């Protein structure tokens, strides 16, 4: 850690992990509500738990991306952060606004929250992932703009590297596409069309640039492979990402009233979206195999490789499973979508933030290169527990989805929605149990920061 101002990332990462724990707790509540219908009813109805779960996910990932940017931009640009005070200020504004929003969801009925926050002036609430009151959305825009200003000025006055440029493009794209959240016409077809410009062009567009930039940074730092090679492949991967991902938005436009040519364009282009994820996996393993040095932080390398693999599995393979229009006709709006959602978000975005934390946290806490062997081994235990339990959650939801598709849509005498839900309750039980295993993994992850604090740093066995 060469620059003092990189320390601001520590605060962002701590908040990120805190919100991550909150997200998983509400995930478990929802999982229980799937099997015990009136669990915590009417205090915390399902839709409130869901809002908290999804909003916490997005907010803690944003905290993670900002923390990653505050850590790697000064190091890449070889200059101090432009305005560390602004970073701290924005941290507290974002944290307070986020906490207030979550409390607003929990303590007040949603309709009252809409009144209190004068949603009628510019109604943007009540849409999936965009449930935040309009004032919070405006707060998010302010935080994002000042963050971009801070990072942009740092890059301007420092060394221009591809990693910095790609990260800045990804973050700028994130801010720009969020503006479509303010567009909420009465015409539902238009509302949904442009809603996907926030959601899809985030997670299958600009967020993949952020993912690529952070992964490239970690690979440069841990494998010592020449920056030229890593940045060259980064460009090719994100080129393929946007080439396939932009028109790939079409796979959301099959059944929401858009013209039917989208069924062809959406299927063809989104069918090619797994290619950049596959290239990223080959690229990550290639760089690690061609490493010029053995970095003692084995946990970070494991997270980086894990990200590439799980992103390909979750976003690539599970995405392809239900992206073709004839298949999507049956699986649209079923548990298959939820299965893809879980593994894709975990594999592509949760894991890259955890990889960045795993790499940079020891350095920010005064270590030379990595944590002690004990702390790293616990962290690796948490990696495997969380990753494997997420694979099983996805498998169980896929099982539930396939059965749901058959019973409710494909069979000759389709059953009612709730009847089918009762029939697939077994998978929901299995998913809930696996959710607790995930929580154990997450707990181990948090504990790993405190275990072996005063043990000596792990060293690379000098076999090589």
């Amino acid at each position, binding site marked *: 850690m060469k620059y003092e101002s990189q320390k601001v990332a520590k605060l962002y990462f701590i908040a990120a992990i805190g919100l991550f724990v909150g997200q998983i707790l509400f995930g478990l509540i929802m999982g229980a509500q799937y099997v015990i219908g009136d669990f915590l009813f*009417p205090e915390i109805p399902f839709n409130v738990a869901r809002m908290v779960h999804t909003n916490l996910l997005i907010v803690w990932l944003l905290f993670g991306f900002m923390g990653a940017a505050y850590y790697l931009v000064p190091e890449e640009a070889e200059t101090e952060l432009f305005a560390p005070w602004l970073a701290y200020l924005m941290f507290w504004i974002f944290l307070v606004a986020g906490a207030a929003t979550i409390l607003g969801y929990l303590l007040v009925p949603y309709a009252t929250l809409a009144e209190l926050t004068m949603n009628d002036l510019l109604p943007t609430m009540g849409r999936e992932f965009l449930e935040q009151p309009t004032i919070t959305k405006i707060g998010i825009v302010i935080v994002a703009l000042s963050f971009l200003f801070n990072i942009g000025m740092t890059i301007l006055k420092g060394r221009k590297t591809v990693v910095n440029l790609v990260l800045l493009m990804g973050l700028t794209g994130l801010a720009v596409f969020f503006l479509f959240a303010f567009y909420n016409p009465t015409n*539902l077809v238009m509302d949904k069309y442009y809603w996907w410009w926030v959601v899809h062009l985030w997670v299958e567009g600009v967020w993949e640039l952020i993912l690529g930039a952070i992964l490239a940074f970690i690979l440069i730092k841990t494998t010592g492979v020449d920056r030229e090679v890593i940045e060259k492949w980064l460009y090719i991967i994100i080129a393929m990402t946007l080439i396939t991902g932009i028109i790939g938005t079409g796979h959301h436009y099959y059944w929401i009233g858009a013209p039917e040519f989208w069924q062809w364009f959406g299927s063809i282009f989104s069918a090619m979206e797994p290619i950049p994820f596959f290239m990223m996996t080959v690229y990550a393993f290639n760089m690690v195999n061609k490493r010029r040095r053995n970095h003692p932080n084995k946990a970070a390398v494991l997270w980086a490789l894990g990200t590439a693999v799980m992103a390909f599995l979750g976003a690539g393979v599970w995405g392809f499973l239900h992206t073709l229009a004839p298949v999507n006709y049956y699986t649209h709006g079923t548990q298959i979508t939820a299965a893809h959602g879980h593994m894709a978000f975990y594999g592509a975005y949760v894991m890259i933030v955890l990889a960045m934390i795993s790499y940079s946290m020891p350095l920010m806490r005064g270590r030379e290169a990595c944590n002690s062997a004990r702390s790293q081994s616990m962290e690796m235990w948490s990696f495997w527990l969380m990753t494997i339990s997420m694979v099983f959650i996805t498998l169980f939801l896929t099982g539930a989805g396939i059965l749901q598709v058959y019973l409710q849509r494909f069979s000759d005498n389709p059953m009612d929605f709730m009847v089918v839900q009762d029939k697939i309750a077994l998978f929901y039980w299995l998913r809930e149990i696996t959710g607790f295993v995930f929580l154990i993994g997450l707990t181990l992850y948090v504990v790993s920061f405190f275990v072996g604090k005063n043990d000596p740093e792990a060293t690379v066995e000098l076999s090589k």
Partner: protein
Amino acid sequence: MAQAFTKAMARNIFYGGTLFFFLAFLALTYQTHQAWPERDNHEALNDTVALGKKVWEDHDCIGCHTLLGEGAYFAPELGNVYKRYGSVDAIKGFIMSRPKDGVPGRRSMPQFNLSDEELTAVAEFLKYVSGINTANWPPNVKG
């Protein structure tokens, strides 16, 4: 001849490719706008439906239900509930009759205590949604 594999060319491919496909996407969006009038059932839009959409959003119905397949998967799809229930009154009746403390051991829709005007509005909104041409999705009336 030494094999060139330059970062500059990779960067050009990235910028060129991204701009090229974004313009293509905008062209397809333009085509979409052209085709919408015959598909989006906009003639059914009126103040009642607009109020209905507001009521739908203010009570976060998307937090449990899916609408045209998008939303939460906890409760039934409502894009075609007008066809499934048959009438505006049937929909209003269902919403009105939700038990205040829910159904023991079962998933239950909360009682939102909507006024009659709001009830009619949200039912009219769902009727409007069922009129949108969604390439005959969902596969059957169960949704």
